[in-house]
């Protein structure tokens, strides 16, 4: 985390070029699937509608949170509130003690990454198993997720073969099926012996107090039903007002994320096991976590980002993300949504580097299922960074100087002449900006005559 994006991205491209290949291949695949899946329905109307529902939710968040608490409690769920990561950790620690937990299975949850749940549990002496195959892979590799939906997107098949051979004793040339079977053997055992299952939450329906989870592997269903205790970590923005909102949101999420019509498994959980039921946990907890979300909500320019349903479509569409994957950003959330959310959730100063990890191509805005104006928000972070002087005095001096030249046409035309008179300088490696450009392109090559000159000499008289 200490290293900024710029240095991390540079290092990653130099030392792990294979990550670029893996991430590019996977994201282009997801991206093409999403495009096809959007094309099968009236995606534009769905996106408008979903955006409207989420904006409404955010405008009445206090109301819906209290409603959700009331309904969840009525369903026999214990509801907890965590203002920040420390609160959430404390609540989770108490629950581990109270329920005498020795082993935990986890469903995929980005919020649990924010809260650093795994290291907390390890400190408490609890054994933790990530049960999403991708998450399990990176847990074995001792790495953070590289993508919201595909945490191991940066790993090639060969990477995983080597990792599993070392950690699970599989053959060096194991097939993907054999690798999955090896993980399955470990995880089945864990599901059956775990005391607690920890999940995230894709949605919580406020009017009914229903926790909704979407997945493709069945591991979340096992995580939330096999162990005797289920704890769901839910960001306060993850609510939906009504059950019927799920009709569009479940389909839109799946289409945006992977191009599927629906997730393979959708679980609607309305409380712990009832007396007449044979399965399910004895106790169920929902921990609602703020952890910076209230400050994002209070920020007019950024609050729409809380509509995010964590589909990862903006990462898949992002050509900048594609070059390095998520690790270069050094944060839990990467790609366009990570650039927008992270400074708001954690520290505005982070925008000084993250804000510029973007070529402003605006491809993300085209795909976001809830129409978050990501490029506009990234620009707003840049504006704030520039206003706070984060780019340094030289950058400000250059832009102010340029603005001064440009608003005085005579100066502008004079500098055009200088560009040609001092041609040697157009590839000088020691010059700011010009040197950086020349390193990848060679020196600047101005036209022999500027257009102004061509106009004066030829075109004006024709």
């Amino acid at each position: 985390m200490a290293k900024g994006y710029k240095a991390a991205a540079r290092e990653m491209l130099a030392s792990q070029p294979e990550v670029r290949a893996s991430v590019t291949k996977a994201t282009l695949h997801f991206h093409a699937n999403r495009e096809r899946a959007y094309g099968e329905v009236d995606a534009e109307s769905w996106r408008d509608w979903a955006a409207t529902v989420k904006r409404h939710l955010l405008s009445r968040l206090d109301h819906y949170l209290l409603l959700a608490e009331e309904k969840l409690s009525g369903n026999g769920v214990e509801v907890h509130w965590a203002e920040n990561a420390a609160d959430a950790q404390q609540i989770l620690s108490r629950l581990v003690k109270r329920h005498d937990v020795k082993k935990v299975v986890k469903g995929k949850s980005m919020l649990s990454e924010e809260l650093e749940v795994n290291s907390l549990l390890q400190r408490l002496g609890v054994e933790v198993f990530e049960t999403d195959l991708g998450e399990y892979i990176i847990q074995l590799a001792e790495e953070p997720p590289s993508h919201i939906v595909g945490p191991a997107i940066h790993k090639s098949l060969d990477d995983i073969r080597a990792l599993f051979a070392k950690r699970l004793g599989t053959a060096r040339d194991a097939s993907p099926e054999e690798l999955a079977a090896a993980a399955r053997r470990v995880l089945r055992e864990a599901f059956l012996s775990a005391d607690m299952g920890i999940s995230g939450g894709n949605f919580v329906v406020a009017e009914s107090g229903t926790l909704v989870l979407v997945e493709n592997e069945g591991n979340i269903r096992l995580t939330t039903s096999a162990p005797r205790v289920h704890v769901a970590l839910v960001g306060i923005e993850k609510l939906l007002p009504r059950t019927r909102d799920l009709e569009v949101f479940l389909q839109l999420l799946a289409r945006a994320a992977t191009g599927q019509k629906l997730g393979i498994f959708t679980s609607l959980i309305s409380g712990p096991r009832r007396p007449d039921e044979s399965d399910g946990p004895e106790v169920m907890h929902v921990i609602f976590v703020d952890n910076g979300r209230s400050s994002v909500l209070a920020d007019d320019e950024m609050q729409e980002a809380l509509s995010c349903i964590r589909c990862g479509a903006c990462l898949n569409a992002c050509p900048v993300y594609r070059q390095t994957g998520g690790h270069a950003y050094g944060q839990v959330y990467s790609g366009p949504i990570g650039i927008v959310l992270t400074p708001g959730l954690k520290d505005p100063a982070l925008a000084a580097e993250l804000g510029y990890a973007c070529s402003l191509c605006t491809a993300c805005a085209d795909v976001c299922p809830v129409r978050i104006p990501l490029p506009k928000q990234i620009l707003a972070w840049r504006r704030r960074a520039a206003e706070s002087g984060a780019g340094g005095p030289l950058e400000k001096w250059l832009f102010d100087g340029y603005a001064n030249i440009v608003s005085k046409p005579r100066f502008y035309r004079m500098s055009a002449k200088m560009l040609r008179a001092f041609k040697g300088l157009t590839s000088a490696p020691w010059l700011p900006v010009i040197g950086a450009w020349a390193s990848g392109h060679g020196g600047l090559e101005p036209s022999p005559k500027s257009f102004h000159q061509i106009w004066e000499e030829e075109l004006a008289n024709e």
Partner: protein
Amino acid sequence: MRVAFFVTCLADQFFAEAAADAVRLLRSLDIEVVFPRGQTCCGQPAYNAGHWDAARKMALHTQQVFEGYDYVVLPSGSCTTMVRAYTPGLFAGDKPHYTAALDLAERTYELSEFLVKVLNVEDLGDGLRGLKVAYHHGCHVSRELGIKSEPVGLLEAAGAEIVPWQADNECCGFGGVFSVKNVPVSLAMADHKLDTLPEVDVLTSADGACLMHMGGHAKKRGLDIKVRHLASLLWEARNG
């Protein structure tokens, strides 16, 4: 019909001949082209870098220079997008300048768009017969303004073959300040464009900056890729 030509600072310095071709093309279509000499830069570099005070200053200058012309035509997709889609937002809360920005936005067109949408020209001639072309869709002009079929249609009508390119609408990695702030990532993006580029005679685009980025990097890599600005090809379509 009278058109004010906004060459844009980048084309003025680096694609001056292509910009001259744009003027020749417009004149050949019986358009009176004027060139307000006070013009400089639309302010996009500062805007994208977050330096909005500097951007406002440049945008104001541009507003004054182009006041009163019926049409303003640019041989640059992203500068057109700056004037049309971004500049008004710089003047939020400043009604007179906001209104002036909207007014200028309404009169401003990218060259190929102007030909197709205002002049209703769909066929310039067949000067590009047999030329195999890769067309790079600049991000801003294609996504923010939706200008995609106009340049491609004009090239095809002139006999050029637009060779399918899987990455034709992907960002080339230029991105203004991005190309100097995050050099390795910016170049890796250009590599993806160049590595997927099909066999063509020429790579073109409505955006000179993208061409400088891809062309410069191709040269640095020792690749033999010929880069030409859309304005030059369109003039050749008519004149070739």
